[in-house]
């Protein structure tokens, strides 16, 4: 899966889970400051990503994540490990 495809999927999740308008989502958008996701939202997102990646993901692995781009990096890495 390419990074673009991951980005599109992630956008779909953000719209579906949090009703964030798609045009507000960019690679540099900060999850907390720009998209106003809080800790509970983060848990929901991680659960969704876990489903998508097809394996257990710990909150620890997303601790350093700040922006949409960071999420894509992290998912990309996890997918590569799984492959």
């Amino acid at each position, binding site marked *: 899966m390419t990074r673009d495809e991951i980005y*599109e999927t992630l*956008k*779909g999740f953000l719209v579906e889970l949090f*009703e*964030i*308008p798609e045009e*507000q989502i960019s690679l540099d958008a900060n999850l907390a400051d720009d998209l106003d996701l*809080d800790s*509970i939202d983060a848990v*929901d997102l991680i659960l969704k990503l876990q489903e998508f990646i097809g394996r257990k993901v710990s909150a620890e692995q997303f601790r350093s994540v700040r922006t949409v781009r960071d999420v894509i990096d992290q998912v990309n890495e996890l997918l590569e490990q799984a492959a």
Partner: protein
Amino acid sequence: MMEALWSFLSGAENSTPVACRGSRDLSAGALRAAALSLAEDLRKDEGAVFLYCEDAANFTAGLIGALICGRDILLPAHSAPAYLAEIGAKRQNLVSDLSTLDGMHVSVAEDGDAGALPAIPDGRIGFFTSGTSGDPKLCMKAMTQLSAEVAVLGNLWGTPAGAVVGTVSHQHIYGLLFRVLWPLASGSVFFSRIHETWESVAESIGEHGTVISSPAHLGRIPPEVRLRHKPAFIFSSGGPLTPQAAQGALAQFGCLPTEVLGSTETGGVAWRRQVEPGEAWTPLPRVEVSADADGALTVLSPFTGASVPVPMGDAVEFLEDGRFRLKGRLDRIVKVEGKRVSLPRVEEALRALPQVEDVAVTDLPDRGGALGAIVVLTGEGQAALSACGSFRYSRDFRAALRRRLEPMELPRFWRFVDEVPQNSQGKRIASVMRSLFRSPELPQIESENREGDKVEFDLLLQPDLRWFEGHFPDQPILPGVAQLHIASVLAERVWGIEFPGHDMSRVKFRRVMQPGERVSLSLVRRERRLDFQYVSGGEIVASGTVRGLE
């Protein structure tokens, strides 16, 4: 006991007015004549009678006619044909004053000549209420329970001095008791037609009139309406009145509303006038209130029909003088992520914000139990919303609430609306609240043209259709399975046949359909087969055949 309820009507001179229809009086003789004539018809059959009337005088004649014949009376909440069929009303057992309904007819003329009524047996009456799920639920009462409550109203507030005007329906227990039975038993006069607007109340109300209303009406008094005469009483029931609505009625009409707490199951329980916001409730005479082990208000009275206290589902706090305050619905405590959250508490926190006019909060089982907030904004709030958009604005709300609420208590989903939806009794139904948060699964039908086994729809594929979610984020299209689903759901609506969709043939999806597109869908039924065809811009974009269930 029943003597008291009907003795005035039974013994009154033929010409004594008992009701007004517009500017005309209806006489006791006319009402008795209509009741006796209906009783002739009803005597020929047995079983429960469904009674639905728009006019309360016709209704009263229907009620008495059925009681005389010893038949139970069931009161539908409204007259939509599908609803009447659902609750079991049919031509043979329906009494109505609507020419559009198929059944027995009851109608009170202006004048009439009829002797005293025969002895009226006690009888039973059933009300259809909407439970919190919204399904119709039947609640049976003995007429003696209603009669006992009317006697208490008379003891507490006397005889209505002027005519009684109602903005609420007599098909519900509060309207029936206050608008019809109380004036009728005490020899006063009631307006037979429901007064839906304050303008019509202003036209009708006479000296010392009594207004039977609800929070839905009292919260929406148009500022220009003036009443010629100050009402003796304004009653409100069906839900708590906001302090603003109570003070608004006082300022505009010179009469502070008397609120009555009650339910169909319990009958009347307590009353108050909000001199101060959140004034405590005083139990009605003959009503014993207490709290059960869960802290819920329970009621023991001759109006409940039960020999043990009946719980009401509200948390209660008693004062030393026997009055009490309600602390929110106990069934409005939900679990979010395993933690107990009080919906009234979240609503209170939102209502305290200056941008919020009104609010309802509901849990959303479809979304993992998260909370959804339905918010009516003040003018200031609306300006802010149009400046920054609903997403950004909802996040501002969340930030503002963080100071008062725990993370679990914060609504995750937001809808900004002009009005919080409620039914005609002013009740907020959880299933209706929740449906605001569900994306629609059917396109918007812009026109529908049916000829026998053929029907054609013009459809708008609105962008928020559930089917566009996730297929595909960059270029959403209407999936084939959704096209089949929409065709079979619409066909089932038209012909009442289920087309499950797995048994299909000759299905071709020629071109994708996108959000915002207008398409026409034609459906042709041949026995149990359904041919469907989607056309857009003059070309067929999808077609096929589905076989229906036997």
